[in-house]
């Protein structure tokens, strides 16, 4: 009963932590744009928080630079269980355009277990919301992470651009 209540509370108001592991800033401003009136991520109860100790979902942008790798791991370890990781953008997923540069590790999954990948360079705010909402589905299925039980992580594919006037 109490567990169900906690699960319900988590699902209704997940707090996300944004971590920039060496991205170009593009993903980060799109996450901030998701908070502002046009996209308004708060209508799902989602809040962008500062401290890893308060966060349920870690959103990581950037290809993970060598200097950031150990810090990213430390942040992840500081988060309370259950915790979920969303790798944002092409470079967060695979290293993207930064593949082959000497100071990058090419992808968040080199350092952390990742639950959802969001494609795009950068993903649009609606795609970011899609990714976080997909992770909310995992909250339902219990405290363990899906990946640990041998299931595939979620992949949010790039959607075709909306009807534009050109």
């Amino acid at each position, binding site marked *: 009963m109490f567990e169900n209540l906690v699960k319900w509370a988590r699902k209704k108001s997940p707090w996300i932590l944004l971590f920039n592991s060496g991205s170009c800033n593009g993903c980060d401003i799109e996450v901030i744009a998701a908070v502002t009136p046009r996209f308004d991520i708060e209508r799902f109860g989602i809040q962008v928080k500062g401290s890893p100790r308060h966060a349920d979902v870690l959103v990581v942008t950037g290809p993970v630079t060598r200097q950031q790798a150990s810090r990213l791991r430390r*942040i992840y370890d500081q988060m309370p269980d259950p915790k979920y990781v969303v790798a944002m953008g092409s470079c967060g997923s695979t290293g993207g355009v930064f593949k082959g540069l000497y100071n990058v590790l090419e992808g968040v999954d080199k350092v952390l277990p990742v639950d959802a990948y969001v494609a795009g360079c950068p993903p649009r705010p609606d795609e970011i919301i899609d990714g976080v909402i997909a992770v909310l589905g995992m909250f339902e299925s219990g405290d363990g992470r899906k990946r640990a039980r041998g299931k595939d992580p979620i992949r949010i594919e790039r959607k075709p651009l909306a009807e534009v006037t050109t």
Partner: protein
Amino acid sequence: MEASGLRPEVRKLAEMTIPIGPQHPALKEPVGFMVNVEGERIKSLDLDVSYNHRGIEKGVEQRDFNQSLYLIERICGICSHAHATNFAKGIEELMNLEIPKRASYIRLIVGELERIHSHYLWVGVAGHEIGFDTLFMYTWRDRELVQDLLEIISGNRVNYAINCLGGVRRDLNEKTIKLALDHLKKLGERAAYYTQLATTEETMVDRLSGVGKLPYEKAKSLGSVGPTARGSGVDSDVRRDDPYLAYAEVPFKVITANNCDVLGRTIVRAGELAQSIEMTKWALENLPPGEIKKAPPRSAPPGEVISRYEAPRGELVHYIKSNNTDKADRFGVRTPTMANWPSVVEGLTGQNIADIPIVVAAIDPCLSCTSRTTFVDIDRHKSWVWNWDELRNYSIRWYKENKGIYWGD
């Protein structure tokens, strides 16, 4: 009390260097600060901007010009067009390639739209840092209009990739131009409102004036660029001083302010918003017909070039050396934020702790967001660590209690 009169262990504490992890990226990119304070006053400031080093300069040497263009665009997501255009411009100069007039106008239009989005973003972030969150939500709502335009013109909201060597990738059609003019009219009205807000709203003027002092001479000698320098009365703008693209033809004014503080930088940015909107309108209305692209040669003859561009944050410099192949021999970047960091140290020394967020935000750092800030109080012999949110809250509370400046929760 002077640092020299302290007990050795306290002095050691004051000199302590803590590797401050970027554990708290509240808004943008990671940077570490070490602040030495005496009570409320800041004694000195040290910063570490190394967290985002990816090795792009080396990467450019291993990729050909076309591949490099897309890599360079991702140096910074906010001024991506500035980086890409500056690089393309430099390579074209090395190749002796003149791009079609229509292409240079389209580059200019995207460049100015980028400046509009960047300045709107800045006004919002500055509002957020001083506790005026209503302004943050207002400006970011309006900014979506520019983002829509950029998406319609280039196909992407952030990394536009409109450039290619020898011109641009996509053309503008009548329908887009009409929509753009329509959006720009609305944006112009909003910009006028923000200019009025920044210059006449009493709380805002009280909060920003006299904060982060940077006198004219200091701005000159520290080599500040962009709105930071122009806010201190330095009349410099690459668009006018060394015109590139079609800037020689488009009429515009260089906005300067003599306030020499954060208010000055706000006034300059608000003024530039209006100027950029007018410039974009003019360029859209006078868009020359013709080709948008010329086929570039495969390689560039040996040579060196310094390419300059007025990015939203100030003068951006690229150095490119070519060696008769399709790759650059050496590539170097000097971003405007790098040039403006010394002015932050100057502006903060002797100021209150409560002024750190807004003074740091005032240069519009591309490497923003201190992960954590360590304070060493020399008088009370203790040190503590704050993250950006706590610092921001402290700053808002301090001004509420001491100056009565408050916008509500």
